[in-house]
């Protein structure tokens, strides 16, 4: 009798082990929304640790809020030498001390100017202002005379030294990298706090960590021609996915569309494609590259990305074709 009992208990134990190995356990999701940098942002953390997850989500609000204020070029904030302050206080030329976070973003953007063949210009706010005015009025197109009448500054005019910046020849606009940069800072913070399963969606910037169910995140790419359609699903973990496109912020005049991504060489919006999506391991790099690729012809971009390790890209062209780099097939 004893022997049979022991035997049955062993079988029961084996059955219990198999049960826990096979049945997939659902996990809890904690999420919070934010609105900064003109974007609706969602952060989701998958974990069983409710208290810490919610605390992290609260702290993320502070991170986005502070980076938002530092990079804001339309508003000043008491006691903060932000982009607005730097752009509007250039009578006495001197070195102004700025927050290290702002210093690092400006330095990052400045370094990419030459690497992108002088296409990534974070210092042409005055040109962007002209286009914003026309975009808000939805009327007319600036002439080349109007665009060249303002001084064109470049990142080479930015002088940085020891966490200080010279307030001379500055018209900074960090729109091309602030969101991706900050979102990577947020992702790094989440990981630092011990969470590896998370998803961040900051408009055209998505970062995912490990999957909540040990599969792969399914990330849809919006069809530039139809907001309600997804033209491709990327399956990935631990990646940043950034899209640059002309189809969200634009205006139409005289049957032509003018988007918000301005080519510093022509001073007019770039028109080589409808959108480009870059997949990398780091959102700071992802956003820089997606802006860069939007400013050059598709085949040039393909050549450049195929030479890079750990970077893939997907183009939605003007004649409705979808082109990938070599590594994208593997993500299917």
């Amino acid at each position: 009798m004893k022997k049979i009992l022991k035997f049955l208990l062993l079988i029961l134990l084996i059955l219990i082990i198999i049960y826990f190995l096979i049945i997939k356990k659902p996990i809890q999701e904690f999420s919070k929304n934010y609105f900064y940098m003109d974007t609706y942002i969602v952060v989701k953390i998958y974990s069983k640790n409710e208290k810490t997850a919610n605390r992290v989500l609260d702290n993320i609000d502070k991170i986005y809020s502070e980076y938002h204020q530092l990079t804001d070029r339309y508003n000043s904030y008491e006691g903060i030498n932000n982009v607005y302050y730097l752009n509007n206080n250039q009578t006495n030329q001197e070195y102004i001390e700025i927050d290290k976070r702002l210093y690092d973003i400006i330095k990052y953007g400045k370094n990419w100017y030459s690497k992108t063949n002088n296409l990534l210009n974070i210092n042409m706010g005055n040109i962007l202002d002209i286009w914003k005015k026309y975009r808000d009025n939805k009327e007319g197109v600036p002439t080349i005379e109007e665009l060249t009448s303002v001084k064109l500054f470049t990142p080479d005019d930015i002088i940085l030294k020891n966490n200080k910046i010279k307030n001379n020849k500055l018209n900074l606009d960090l729109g091309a990298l602030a969101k991706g940069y900050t979102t990577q800072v947020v992702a790094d913070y989440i990981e630092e706090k011990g969470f590896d399963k998370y998803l961040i969606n900051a408009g055209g910037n998505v970062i995912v960590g490990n999957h909540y169910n040990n599969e792969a995140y399914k990330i849809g790419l919006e069809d530039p021609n139809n907001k309600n359609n997804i033209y491709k699903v990327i399956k990935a973990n631990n990646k940043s996915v950034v899209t640059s496109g002309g189809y969200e912020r634009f205006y139409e005049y005289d049957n032509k569309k003018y988007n918000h991504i301005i080519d510093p060489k022509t001073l007019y919006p770039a028109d080589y494609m409808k959108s480009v999506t870059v997949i990398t391991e780091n959102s700071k790099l992802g956003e820089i590259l997606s802006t860069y690729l939007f400013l050059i012809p598709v085949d040039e971009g393909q050549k450049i990305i195929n030479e890079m390790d750990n970077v893939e890209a997907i183009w939605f062209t003007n004649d409705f074709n979808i082109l990938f780099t070599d590594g994208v097939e593997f993500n299917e």
Partner: protein
Amino acid sequence: MNKNDLLLIIPIFIISLFVIFLLKFSNNQAKNALIFYENEQVLKVPLNINKTYNVKGYNGDVLIEVNNNKIRVNQENSPHNLCSKQGYIDSSYETIVCLPNKIVVKIIDEEIIDTVVK
């Protein structure tokens, strides 16, 4: 065939039946549930994430809970509370209908997209 053979065969048989049973019922295909108010879809929720949702019903807020790949109406303002009494559903063959609040909860089998890059 002697006693020792049976001692080996029967446990293996039981265990394999058990594994087959588990695999059939452990759903690899993740499901979504659709929530309708007055016949219009107001929400689409994944069943593989435990969460409680607050939906506006005709008589007030309706709490809908997703737990362990099942979904149910947890709380609603109605004379007989029939739809919260119904409890959990976990397959697309079942539907939860809350007539007084005009809420319908249906499960659909479909591929979930986690997020969309705009």
